[in-house]
């Protein structure tokens, strides 16, 4: 199998090698780079440093509750407070459960659709591709509003159909609501991920399959043993972006919170950070933001390293 994949990888590598032109004056290079890197510095790097700094501060009072407050260096005090907060662990636990279930389910559906669109089995391919990709055009807030109508016991045609066959669905119940949020994310992002995987499949040269077909391999074998291993980098990419997205979850639960009392104001880590900041405790909010960012980094880098090591072995 590796022998089959080798030429693809080699051509991809040689295509990616770029040399560029030498002897451009440093001033010119800076002129090209500065329009991006100055805003990047101001709106990406500085906020990160500022959040790190804030998270190390504490607000103290001179004497009792009515003393004047002043800001002092507190070391890791905010972080200690953050991890002692049971709401923090509640939000982390929910998001972990969400990610462990939703990301694989979504990517599995995306992979199945991509493989089907790439196989000779389907008709109406462009219709199906467009149908799956359509939700990507819908902003998360609006998707959540749409689904909230489909979850609502008073308005939902889905609920009334299920009730007609004798079921009593409660999409907004204490345990169900997490999966109702997961459904909104899945609906929104499956098509996007599908298109990433599908584009990767389309760039595999057809000759690779000819040899396998001569050996008597069927579509299923070709899909599992040739196509999936070749698009592994695309699968890793989509997984990493899905992990990042999951950890940032905010809009969908915030919208469903408007109709369900089972979503607290600290339901996800991001909602927690916002709730703490709304209470004017910016230092604590900064610590939570930093933790979210670090966890995101560790998980996405960790996943890439883990999978690339396995691919080399």
């Amino acid at each position, binding site marked *: 199998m590796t022998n089959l994949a080798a030429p693809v990888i080699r051509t991809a590598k040689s*295509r*990616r090698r770029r040399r*560029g*032109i030498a002897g451009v004056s440093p001033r010119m*290079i800076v*002129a*090209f*780079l500065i*329009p*991006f*890197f100055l*805003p*990047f510095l101001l*709106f*990406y790097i500085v906020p*990160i440093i*500022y959040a790190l700094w*804030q998270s190390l501060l504490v607000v103290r009072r001179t004497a009792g509750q009515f003393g004047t407050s002043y800001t002092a260096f507190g070391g890791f005090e905010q972080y200690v407070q953050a991890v002692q907060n049971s709401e923090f662990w509640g939000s982390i636990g929910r998001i972990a459960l969400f990610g462990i279930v939703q990301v694989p389910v979504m990517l599995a559906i995306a992979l199945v659709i991509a493989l*089907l669109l790439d196989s000779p*089995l*389907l008709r109406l391919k462009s*219709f199906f591709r467009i*149908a799956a*990709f*359509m939700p*990507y*055009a*819908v*902003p998360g*807030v*609006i*998707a959540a509003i*749409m*689904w909230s*109508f*489909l979850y609502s016991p*008073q*308005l939902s*045609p*889905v609920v009334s159909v299920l009730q007609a066959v004798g079921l009593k669905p409660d999409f907004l119940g204490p345990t169900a609501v997490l999966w109702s949020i997961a459904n909104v994310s899945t*609906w929104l992002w499956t098509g996007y991920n599908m298109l*990433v995987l599908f*584009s*990767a499949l*389309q760039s595999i040269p057809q000759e690779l399959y000819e040899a396998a077909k001569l050996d008597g391999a069927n*579509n299923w074998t070709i899909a599992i043993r040739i196509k999936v291993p070749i698009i592994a*980098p*695309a699968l890793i990419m989509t997984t990493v972006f899905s992990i990042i997205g999951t950890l*940032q979850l*905010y*809009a969908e639960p915030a919208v469903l919170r*408007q109709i369900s009392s089972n979503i607290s104001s600290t339901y996800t880590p*991001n909602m927690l*950070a*916002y709730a703490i900041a709304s209470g004017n405790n*910016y230092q604590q*909010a*900064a610590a939570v*933001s930093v933790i979210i960012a670090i966890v995101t*980094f560790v998980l996405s880098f960790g996943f890439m390293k883990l999978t690339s090591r396995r691919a080399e072995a």
Partner: protein
Amino acid sequence: MRRGVIARESRVTKVAAMTVMVVLAIYFLLPIYFLVVAATKPQGDLASTFGLAFSHFNLWSNLGTLFSLQNGIFLQWALNSLIYAAGGAAVGTLVSTLAGYALAKFQFRGRETLFSVVLGGVLVPTTALALPLFLLFSSVHLVDTYWAVFLPSIVSPFGVYLARIFAGGAVPDEILESARLDGAGEFRIFFSVAFKLLSPSLVTIFLFQFVGIWNNFFLPMVMLQTDRLYPITLGLYNWNGQTSRVPLLQESVITGSLVSIIPLIIVFLALQRFWKTGLASGSLK
């Protein structure tokens, strides 16, 4: 004999494949269909009639209500979304392409390091930046202005990443060398030669950033208090939160949702091929 078995097997597989896809297509399209149906109904029919069947056709009057509520604030929100998304993406695409082009085409020390920093930026969760940005902006009195949403939106590390890949592939060194021999300056070469060669890629970068800003919710929510500055997402979110007190807003939330996704769906369908190129190079990494 063997042939017959294979043919029958593949017919079964084909039916199974079609069934799976039809079910999934219904899943993807159902909420949008529901929204279309609900947008045509009078408020009173929302709860009293079946959600997937049309009842009294009331779309024009719903649209009238939507655009006249609170002195036509919905139109203002739509305009704001367009300013943030189209303006931010246009500026963002230009600066990303300049940087990506320089990273791909100019030889200088530290360009790999700089590119790694950009790649690291792709992985930064942007919502984690919103709260510290709020504090920084409030110290320079930028909070609750257009700039508070617009300025951070122009920065797209993913755009630089795409631009570098596209420039590396679509702009041959030889053309640049000969333009320089003719005495053209670097910016002139960029705008007259590279810009043309890169134009399909520019559309791709623009699209990704446009959708990113259009969908953004957390940043405007943190930054904006004045409802005249809201983008559509934040405006509809606020209306949706008031429906328990003002039930009549429900129909406008539905109609407004439909109105706000239709232009995007049209743009998507019209520019499909640009998505494919972008996604293919995104996954090459």
